[in-house]
């Protein structure tokens, strides 16, 4: 059997076994089973990786047809897996990060009433995500797409007894539906005009039907991007992601930072041939990405909830990835996706360790001085924050630099996009080190009931592993003058060369600007948050209006409430009283009433005594017999 097939179905097997045995298994057994399933899947993904390396770069794109699924008119659909460098990288990232987070959860979720169910859902998520990245046609991709959405809903609402968690899950689901509507229409467009949903067939046939630069090509690309915007929380569909933090922290780390939310970026990379048919759509992608990166970055500056800071940071980083896609640097987008998966999940796991130490406290203004008691957590979190902010030589530095340089070289609008990317980078440094100083620096700002301590080993080691990856993963793709970029070269068969012609010294200059942005951001954080009390005065004084705007997230939620939610509820209320009650209910009840009244006489015949019925039957039969006799004797002759 092919290793990717094992990697796909092992987590599903784990999910089924854990769920079926949830009542009987001891909790630790359920956790072990689920973790082992994902760990094995990760090992198989390495096997697949080495198998792929044994092929020549040109022969690394494979379609694995497992079995036919259905035939709809002309369109035949089978369970088709696409195994190429792009899906291979996603497969390894997803299973690897998922394995570490499973390990972390074993300890983090301990004592929860629904401990086995958590692992069953987490395993199901891993299966869905792997299905999404390995799918070889758009229908399977969509199935994975919706399944990860379902798992996200289930896991956000894992503590569904709390109304916040339940409504956050619902919000995530509903907002994603808006994006998915576009995605479904795009899939139907392809099925209807191209007669195939397999990647091979679609990418081969699309240029003949969706002519380059035509309106239909633009429509198709924008509809696909609509789906990506929902899943990857791009403005204006970003509102669900911060609320999704109501779920358990490992879920935020796995689903809402490292894997599921990057599915939109993966989709955009996968559908690169389709986007390239409509160059205008790429400008749109780039501008939405750049705007979201800056927009979410500013919001992250003023949030008090540690997990929300990280959530807005995720939105902002996803914006940078879309910026890269928009300027045609798909490899850079994938590289940032790759490094971001490590350092962002690390930061979330660190936030989980802080919550663990402080009894669930999330308000950064009530923390402080945790560097000493939480040594291990502090160093890991710091590594993650450095990588996120793009400190030189960390993973985030190289991947962000790839994106910024690609934007710098892009035509047209390159310089404007580059400046926005640079601003987003500076903001990243500011908000991530604001979080570091407020959480770990200074002295405790509130009195603590008991001394906080580092989490147990099972939570520490996954964090340490991710911290190492956050620091070194960037070396897989160094700037072009070094001629060392195995990551980019590996992806080349699928995404093409994402390098641009660079005038001499341009890359070094762009890198210098990126370092300057990092230093500016971290310096501003140092100046502002080194001493918490002064900042409070500043925020209370001159910066108060700005702080209010940012703290309230530009009132996007309020705008949605006023423009969409309330009118919808009002209309629904009117429909209910006007049409449902007065129309349908009245009609149904009126008919029933008439029938009831008209049957008053008839009902008296129904005595309920079997004898009466039997007599009626006997008399009827006798009457029939007489009738037949009469007809035969008198009428027929």
């Amino acid at each position, binding site marked *: 059997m092919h290793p990717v097939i094992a990697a796909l179905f092992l987590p599903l097997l784990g999910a089924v076994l854990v769920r079926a045995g949830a009542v009987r298994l001891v909790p630790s057994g359920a956790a072990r089973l689920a973790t082992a399933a994902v760990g094995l899947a990760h090992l198989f993904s390495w096997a697949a990786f080495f198998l792929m390396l044994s092929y020549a770069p040109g022969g690394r794109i494979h379609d694995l047809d497992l079995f036919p699924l259905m035939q709809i008119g002309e369109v035949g659909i089978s369970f088709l897996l696409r195994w190429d460098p792009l899906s291979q990288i996603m497969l390894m990232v997803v299973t690897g990060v998922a394995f570490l987070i499973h390990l972390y959860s074993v300890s983090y979720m301990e004592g929860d009433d629904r401990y086995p169910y958590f692992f069953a859902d987490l395993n199901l998520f891993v299966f869905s995500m792997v299905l999404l990245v390995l799918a070889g046609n758009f229908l399977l991709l969509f199935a994975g797409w919706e399944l990860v959405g379902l798992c996200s809903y289930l896991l956000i609402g894992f503590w569904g007894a709390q109304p916040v968690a339940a409504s956050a899950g619902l919000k995530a689901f509903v907002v994603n539906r808006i994006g998915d509507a576009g995605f479904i229409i795009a899939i139907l467009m392809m099925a209807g005009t191209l007669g195939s949903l397999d990647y091979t067939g679609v990418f081969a046939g699309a240029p003949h039907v969706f002519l380059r630069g035509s309106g239909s090509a633009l429509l198709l690309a924008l509809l696909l991007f609509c789906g990506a915007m929902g899943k990857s929380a791009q403005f204006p569909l970003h509102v669900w992601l911060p609320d999704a933090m109501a779920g358990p922290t490992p879920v935020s780390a796995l689903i809402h930072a490292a894997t599921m939310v990057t599915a939109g970026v993966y989709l955009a990379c996968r559908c690169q041939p389709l986007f390239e048919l409509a160059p205008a759509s790429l400008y749109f992608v780039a501008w939405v990405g750049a705007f979201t990166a800056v927009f979410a970055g500013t919001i992250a500056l003023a949030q008090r909830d540690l997990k929300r800071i990280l959530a807005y940071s995720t939105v902002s980083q996803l914006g940078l990835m879309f910026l890269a896609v928009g300027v045609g640097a798909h490899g850079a987008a994938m590289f940032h996706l790759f490094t971001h998966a490590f350092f962002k999940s690390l930061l979330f796991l660190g936030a989980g360790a802080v919550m663990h130490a402080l009894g669930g406290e999330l308000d950064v203004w009530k923390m402080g001085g945790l560097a000493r008691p939480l040594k291990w957590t502090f160093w890991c979190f710091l590594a993650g924050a450095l990588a996120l902010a793009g400190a030189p030589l960390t993973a985030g530095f190289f991947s962000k630099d790839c994106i910024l340089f690609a934007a710098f070289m892009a035509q047209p609008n390159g310089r404007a996009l580059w400046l926005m990317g640079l601003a987003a980078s500076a903001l990243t440094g500011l908000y991530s080190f604001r979080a570091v100083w407020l959480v770990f620096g200074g002295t405790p700002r509130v009195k603590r009931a008991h001394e906080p301590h580092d989490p147990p080993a099972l939570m520490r080691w996954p964090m340490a592993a991710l911290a190492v990856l956050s620091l070194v993963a960037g070396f897989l793709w160094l700037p072009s003058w070094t001629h060392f970029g195995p990551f980019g070269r590996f992806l080349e068969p699928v995404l093409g060369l994402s390098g641009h012609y660079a005038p001499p010294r341009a890359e070094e200059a762009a890198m210098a600007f990126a370092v300057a942005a990092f230093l500016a951001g971290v310096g501003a954080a140092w100046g502002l948050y080194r001493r918490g009390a002064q900042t409070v005065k500043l925020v209370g004084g001159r910066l108060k209006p700005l702080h209010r705007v940012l703290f309230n997230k530009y009132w996007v939620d309020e705008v949605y409430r006023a423009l969409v939610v309330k009118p919808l509820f009002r209309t629904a209320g009117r429909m209910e009283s006007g049409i449902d009650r007065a129309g349908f209910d009245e009609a149904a009840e009126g008919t029933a009433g008439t029938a009831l009244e008209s049957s008053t006489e008839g*009902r*008296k015949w*129904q*005595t*309920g*005594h*079997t004898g009466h*019925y039997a007599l009626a039957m*006997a008399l009827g039969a006798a009457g029939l017999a007489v009738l037949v006799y009469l007809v035969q004797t008198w009428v027929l002759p």
Partner: protein
Amino acid sequence: MTLGLLQLLAFWMFACGVAGVVIRRSPLAVFMSIELMLNAANLLIVLGSGNAGMEAAASAGLAAVFILIALGAAEVAVGLAVMMAMFREGKGASLDQATGLKG
């Protein structure tokens, strides 16, 4: 002559059955009356098939009788189950109490 008498017997049995179903209050008695009617019908079929004087008709009649006997057996199974249910509900003593179909 014998044929006529036997036919009369069948009519009489059937009439007794009908009267029993209509008049009797005990479910068990009603049940027996139904069986009486079935047997009356069986008797008529046997008489008719024997009288036709044809091999095919004779075997067809016998087959019909067997089908009717099987029908009766099936009816016993269902009917007894219904009666058990009625006894459980405490309505087994008299059919007058089972008036669930009253309008």
